[in-house]
């Protein structure tokens, strides 16, 4: 994936995200403390925040509204549509492929007929990931996907994301406030502070 971002976005609370970078990598990690602009950056790439200039693999996403960008977005609290079953959540996108493959890869086959309120936190995360994958996105955004997990579950979740990345050959942008989570998966890392890029890191050819 070759991703270029040039964004200057002012929030009503006075916060300004002002970044410009280009990366050529499979998994881009974004690190930084809370409130540094990581989620705003994901919003800009996804099209929630308009006004950023985004290019992905030579194609400009800038003029496209959110629903035409084909960018999967998994929020940190793994929001699911509460009135839809797991199956309907995963099959929600008009671009949804056969959901059985995705459900099987993520170990959700037995949960397909459940409603979200009957799922554990870990199951919800897997369903949110499955729903984003089923939509056949060209890029997957993961916002603090391991937040709130204990060490054992975090290791499992990191292994799951790694497996998904391999199985679907899907480029990702992974946001976390914990450097070790990003280092476990990312092939290139950038750091944000106060809405600005402070440390673009070189690609690690070993990964």
């Amino acid at each position, binding site marked *: 994936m070759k991703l270029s971002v040039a964004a200057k976005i002012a929030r009503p609370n006075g916060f300004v995200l002002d970044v410009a970078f280009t990366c050529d990598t499979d998994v881009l990690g974004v690190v930084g403390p809370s409130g540094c602009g990581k989620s705003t950056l994901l919003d800009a790439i*996804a099209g929630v925040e308009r006004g950023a200039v985004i290019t992905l693999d030579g194609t400009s996403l800038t003029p496209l509204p*959110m*629903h035409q960008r084909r960018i999967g977005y998994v929020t940190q609290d793994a929001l699911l549509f*509460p009135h839809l079953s797991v199956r309907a959540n995963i099959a*929600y996108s*008009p671009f949804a492929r056969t959901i059985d493959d995705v459900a099987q890869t993520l170990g959700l086959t037995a949960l397909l007929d459940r*409603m979200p309120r009957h799922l554990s936190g870990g199951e919800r995360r897997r369903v949110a990931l499955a*729903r984003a994958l089923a939509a056949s996105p060209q890029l997957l955004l993961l916002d603090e996907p391991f937040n709130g997990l204990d060490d054992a579950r975090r290791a499992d979740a990191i292994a799951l994301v790694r497996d998904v990345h391999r199985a679907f050959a899907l480029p990702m942008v992974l946001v976390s406030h914990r450097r070790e989570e990003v280092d476990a998966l990312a092939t290139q890392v950038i750091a944000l502070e106060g809405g600005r890029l402070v440390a673009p890191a070189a690609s690690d050819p070993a990964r």
Partner: protein
Amino acid sequence: MDSVRISLSVATAATLLSLPFAVAVAWYLERSRHAARHAVQSIVWLPLVLPPVVTGYLLLKAFSPRGTVGQTLASLGLPVAFHWLGAVVAAAVVGFPLFVMMIALSLKAVDPRLERLSQSLGRSPWQTFWRITLPLTWPGMLAGAAIAFARALGEFGATIILAGRIPGETETIPLRIHAELDAPGGEQRIIGLVIVSIILCVIAVVWARLLDAWYRRRLELDT
């Protein structure tokens, strides 16, 4: 019982007429970041704070048979001033702020990130409204409709100015009660109407409360 029939038909039509506009305005007020929304909110609130008679007078000016709007509607077979439709318009306008407020409350309870997620998955804003927003807010909309219906049942000031008191056409329960109180022995004759009014409004308000409670419970359980 003509006035009961007219009140029910006027309140039902007013509620149905307002529904799409109330949904659109509530959605705009809750979801838009447009600067004009504060001005729109003030305008929507006006019928709630203006004396109903003043609202009726302004509506009469707007829909006067001598005015462009009134003449155009009359030529389409939809006369407003001093007709049944006038009572509907008056009830719809006066109940509109409450209707919008109730729907806005139910929209506020739905996490807007769900709508953004829907769009990130390839659904357009319109598809998102039908598949996510509406299924999650319809109980709140129905509760709002019940409150708007109850408000329409009680409408008096704007109705008498815009629609007049025409027995069999625009004479709703409040207008009939008002007329009877002016006549000798009328107080005895209105007892039935008063009881019917109270029962209808209590049913509407209780229904709205039950729906609202069920809806909030459902959202709490699900999210």
